[in-house]
């Protein structure tokens, strides 16, 4: 059970003056249940890539296998694929439209052909998963705070029971509290349901704390792919493509340069603290 991307290429406006090679020979396999961070700055191709994963875009060449099946083969059920691979766009709260929170979340499952009752059950389950308090279900989604609205929008996708959840910068524009709420809920969701999550983000600090694998894209190519600590060990390369490692990484490397015998693989505050105390020979 996985998503396997083979030799994927995508060219915007081919054979015109605006031709742009947005994805170049992408080869990735994402296994079921992984929590993956997809990093790249504006224009790196990350949004183009995720739009391929539920077939919103068709590649110029290459193949994607979802659970072993070629999704471009004649007769492949695209509608089913889009239920299985849920995509939460940037600023998803702009897509809220119903008069109550519950109705909004019911929209997806109803479209899948479920009865009203079944849709409500799924919707309630999804709202619970994103941690939205029950007294808000009957409210207009437009009366909620930014973080709450966004969780309703995410619930709208979860209500369709996807195997894979892709979120395009789910914390953009939120304050720290809203950001921690969303990321915390995603972690919970991942632990409880073993859903595959692909998180697209600019923020290395967020990614470092939460994901088990990071894929860094640059100019349409996969530049780095591995565990967070391994990726951030290449912090100099990351800088060349205008990314930065978490602050902790810089501090530890600076200490090493100043003669500390120190483990530089830490990426969170907690790990950094342990590494520094160890290097100073303090007992923890």
């Amino acid at each position, binding site marked *: 059970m996985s998503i396997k991307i083979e030799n994927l290429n995508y060219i915007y406006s081919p054979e015109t003056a605006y031709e742009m090679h947005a994805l170049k020979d992408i080869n990735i396999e994402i296994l079921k249940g992984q929590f993956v961070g997809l990093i790249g*700055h*504006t*224009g790196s191709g990350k949004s183009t890539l995720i739009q391929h994963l539920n077939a919103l875009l068709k590649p110029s060449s290459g193949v994607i296998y979802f659970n072993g099946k070629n999704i471009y083969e004649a007769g492949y059920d695209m509608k089913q694929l889009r239920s299985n691979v849920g995509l939460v766009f940037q600023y998803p709260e702009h897509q809220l439209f119903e008069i109550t929170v519950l109705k909004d979340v019911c929209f997806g499952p109803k479209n899948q052909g479920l009865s009203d009752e079944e849709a409500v059950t799924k919707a309630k389950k999804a709202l619970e998963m994103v941690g939205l308090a029950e007294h808000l279900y009957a409210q207009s989604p437009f009366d909620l*705070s*930014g*973080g709450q609205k966004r969780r309703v929008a995410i619930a709208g996708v979860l209500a369709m029971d996807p195997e894979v959840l892709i979120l395009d910068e789910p914390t*953009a*524009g*939120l*304050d*720290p*509290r*809203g950001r921690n709420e969303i990321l915390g809920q995603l972690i919970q969701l991942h632990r409880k349901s073993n859903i595959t999550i692909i998180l697209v983000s*600019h*923020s290395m*600090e967020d990614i470092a704390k939460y994901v088990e694998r990071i894929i860094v894209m640059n100019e349409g190519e996969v530049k780095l792919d591995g565990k967070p600590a391994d990726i951030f060990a290449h912090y100099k390369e990351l800088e060349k493509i*205008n*990314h*930065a490692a*978490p*602050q*902790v990484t*810089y*501090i530890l490397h*600076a*200490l090493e340069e*100043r*003669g*500390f015998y120190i483990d530089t693989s830490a990426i969170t*505050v*907690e790990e*950094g*603290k342990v590494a*520094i*105390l160890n290097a*100073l020979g*303090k007992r*923890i």
Partner: protein
Amino acid sequence: MGIIKADQLVYEYKKYNEEGDLDSSVKAVDGVELDVKAGEFIAILGHNGSGKSTLAKHINAILLPTEGTIFVDGIDTRNDEQIWKIRQSAGMVFQNPDNQIIGTVVEEDVGFGPENIGIPTRKIWERVDEGLKAVGMLGYRKHSPNKLSGGQKQRVAIAGVLAMRPKCIVLDEPTAMLDPKGRKEVITTIKTLNEEEQITAILITHYMDEVIYADKAIVMDNGKIVMQGTPREIFAHVEELKEIGLDVPQVTMLAYELKKAGLSLSDGILTNDELVNELCQLK
């Protein structure tokens, strides 16, 4: 009196029901005292709904106080006849770059403000040049704004404000929608304008790492100012900041944790270098 002075400022959002009766009211700004001196760089922090944007909108008279007063360059913002003068003194840059760019060519967008107040054409172009140069976007003057990156768009928006020759520039979460590179561009621009052109800068943000350049940081919660001081003083209060839903930079957090674990470090460490230097002393 400073360039911006607020005295017991209160702003109440009122909600009316369908019959037109008062349903509820919320004091978004609640008794704020503020005195900003010309040339200062002030950061206002707070989570969503803390009242920071409402306060900012008083500085160029988009909102008028329910109670109390606010003076901008010595003018009471309730003085209707002076409203254009107030808006000229205090320019504003908003969060979403796409909502504030109106021109089809960068230079036209920047020239829109001065053209509106009847500046002669030749003078407009001078101001456009100066504005774009100050934000490092002169090379893009003939470009179409919609082909620019988010950070570049925000710099064009800042240039548009500069073309009005303001004494003060208010930026309401100007980097919230930008990628790290864009954020850096915008923050560096603000810092340079403040240092070199002595423009008073008021930066509203919830990114703590952007605050370290400010002369003074003000923390808002529930419409009130709950903390103010230099960034270093503010960041020494890690627990209080966390309590009201704010973060501190990772390096400050790390220093705080190390201190708690028994290392003797200063309060409110703001940069990697500071921490590394202090740790080297302990080796």
